[in-house]
C-alpha cells in the first residue's frame, strides 16, 4: 500500500450528533483531490481530524506508512500534513515574512535531522516562498493589513513553508473575485511540481473541476462518491444531495 494518506473507518461524534460516519479516504503522493459536499456535510470535521485539531474516537489515520491517529497537530505537520484555514489566521502582530518563519523554524526540523537553519537561511527561504506566491513585495508589511486575496496567499505560503507532502486547502477561494480565484487556483496547481499532494475543499465547482484529478463527495458524514470528476458529477446521488429532489 503506497498511499500517502490513508484514512480508514473514521468516525467523529459531537455529543449525539455523528459528524463523520466510517469515512475512508486515500490520497496518493502528488495527487490532486477535490473534496466537496453541502454545508455541514463533515468536510471541515474531516480536515480537523486529519490535521489533528480534533481527536477521533474510532478509525485510523495513517500518513506515509505510519499510524498518526494519536499524534497532536504540531507533530502531524512536522511529518508533512499542512493545512490552510477557511478563515485566514495570520499571526497578526508580526510581518508577512515573520509569519513564514514560524513553520520554517518549527515544522521542518523533524524530517531534516536535528540541525536547525540559521536566521539568515530562514529569511532567504521565506523570501523565496513569498516570491513564488507573489507576496515578495509585502514581506515587511504587517500581516493584519493585507487584502483578502493576499491573506489567502499568505495562508498558502505559510503552509508551503512547512515543506509538506500533503496540503489541505480549506476553502482557500471563498469570497474572492473570479480573477482572484484563478490566481489561487494557479498556485494550487503548481503544488504538484513541488511534489505536494493537495486536498482541495471548495464550493466553487468551476475550480474543483479544473483542479481535481479525483473528487470525493461527503454528504451528512458519509462518503457518497469517489472517482473521476466528471463521473462523480453525473452521479444521481450527488446531484440529489446538491440540487435536492
Amino acid at each position, binding site marked *: 500500500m503506497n498511499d500517502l494518506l490513508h484514512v480508514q473507518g473514521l468516525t467523529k461524534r459531537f455529543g449525539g450528533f455523528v459528524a463523520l460516519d466510517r469515512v475512508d479516504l486515500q490520497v496518493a503522493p502528488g495527487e490532486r483531490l477535490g473534496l466537496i459536499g453541502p454545508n455541514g456535510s463533515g468536510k471541515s470535521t474531516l480536515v480537523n481530524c486529519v490535521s489533528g485539531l480534533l481527536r477521533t474516537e474510532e478509525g485510523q489515520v495513517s500518513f506515509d506508512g505510519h499510524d498518526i491517529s494519536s499524534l*497532536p497537530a504540531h*507533530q502531524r*505537520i512536522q511529518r508533512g500534513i499542512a*493545512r490552510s484555514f477557511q478563515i485566514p489566521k495570520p*499571526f497578526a*502582530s508580526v510581518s508577512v515574512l515573520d509569519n513564514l518563519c*514560524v*513553520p520554517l*523554524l*518549527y515544522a521542518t526540523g523533524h524530517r531534516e535531522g536535528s540541525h536547525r537553519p540559521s536566521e539568515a537561511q530562514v529569511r532567504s527561504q521565506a523570501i523565496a516562498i513569498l516570491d513564488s506566491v507573489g507576496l515578495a513585495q509585502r514581506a515587511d508589511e504587517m500581516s493584519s493589513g493585507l487584502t483578502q486575496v493576499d491573506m489567502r496567499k499568505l495562508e498558502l505560503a505559510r503552509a508551503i513553508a512547512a515543506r509538506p507532502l500533503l496540503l489541505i486547502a480549506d476553502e482557500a477561494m471563498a469570497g474572492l473575485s473570479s480573477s482572484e480565484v484563478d490566481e489561487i487556483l494557479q498556485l494550487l496547481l503548481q503544488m504538484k511540481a513541488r511534489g505536494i499532494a493537495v486536498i482541495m475543499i471548495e464550493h466553487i465547482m468551476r475550480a474543483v473541476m479544473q483542479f481535481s484529478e479525483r473528487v470525493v463527495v461527503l454528504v451528512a458524514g458519509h462518503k457518497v462518491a469517489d472517482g473521476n470528476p466528471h463521473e462523480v458529477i453525473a452521479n444521481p446521488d450527488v446531484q440529489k444531495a446538491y440540487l435536492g429532489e
Partner: protein
Amino acid sequence: MSNARFATIALLAGVLLIVGAQWIQNDYFFNAAYTVLMYVILSTAWNILGGYTGYVNFGTAGFFALGVYSSIVLWKAFHPPLAVMIVVGTLVAALAGVGLGYLTMRLRGHFFAIATLALAIMLFTFVTNWDYAGGARGAYVIVPREVPFGFARYIRYLFSVMVLLSVASIVVARVVERSRLGRGLAAIRDDELAAECAGVPTLKLKLISTALSGGMMGLAGTTFPFFISFVEPVGAFDLRYAVNAIAMPVIGGMTTWLGPLIGAVLLGTVQQLVQVTISSAWNLLIVGLLLVGFVTMAPEGIMGWVFAWRRRRARRS
C-alpha cells in the same frame, strides 16, 4: 546586537549602577530603588507570559509570595546563604507555574486568568494557616549583623543583589524574545490554532513560558523578607504587586523587553514619590487609572509611540 554582547553591556551597566550608587549618602534612596527594581523584575516576568505569549496572569502576588515564603522557611530552618534562597525560591515558583499551567493551559485564556487569581488566594489561605511560616500573625526575619562584600549597610547589599537580578531578568527576557522560542510564543499569542498547525508545540511552549514567568516572579520575592524584616501574608500577597505587574508592561509596551523596564522605572518612581508626598492609597489610584487609560487609549504603550515615530521617520527618508 548579539545576546552575548547585550548581556555584557547590561552587566556593565548594572555594575556601574552599583558602584556609582555607593556615593549616595541617603539610605532612603536604596529603599526606594530596591522597590523599583523589584517591580522591574516582576513586570519583566509578567511580560514573558502576558506580553509574549498572550496569557494574562492576575496571580503575580502568589508567585511573588512563594519566593518570599520559601526564603522565610529556609532561613528559619537552615540559615543558608542568600544565593541558595534565591535559587530555591525561584525553582519553587517555577514549579508552581508549571503546575498551574498544566492544570489550566488547555483552557481558553479567560479561564487561565481567573485560575491564576484562584491560585494566589489558595496560597494565601494556606500560608495564613501555616504556623511554622508565621501564619496570619506574620514572621520576623532577623537581618544578618555582618554585611557581605564590605557594603556599608545591609540595604546597600540588597540593592546591589537586586540590580544583578534585574539585569539577569532583562537578559533572559531579551534572549527569549529574539529566539526560536520567542517566535513560537508570539505565534501562540496571535493565534493558538494556527501556531499549532504551523508545527509549534503549543502546550510545551506555554508550560515553558509559565515556568519562566512564575520563576522570575518568585525570584523577585526571595530577598524581600530581608528587605522589610517582618512579613505577614496580607503584605506578601498584596494585590498591588499583581496590578503593578500588569500596569507596568501595559504602560511601557508589551512586545519588547524594553517596555516593562520603562513602565517599571516610570511607574515605580512615581509611586515612590507619591507615597512620600501624598499617600499610598492615592498612588494605587494612579496606577489603576493609568492602567485603564493606557489599555483603552494607547494599547501599545510608550514603546508603541516610539515604534510609530520610527516608522514615520523611516517613511520620510
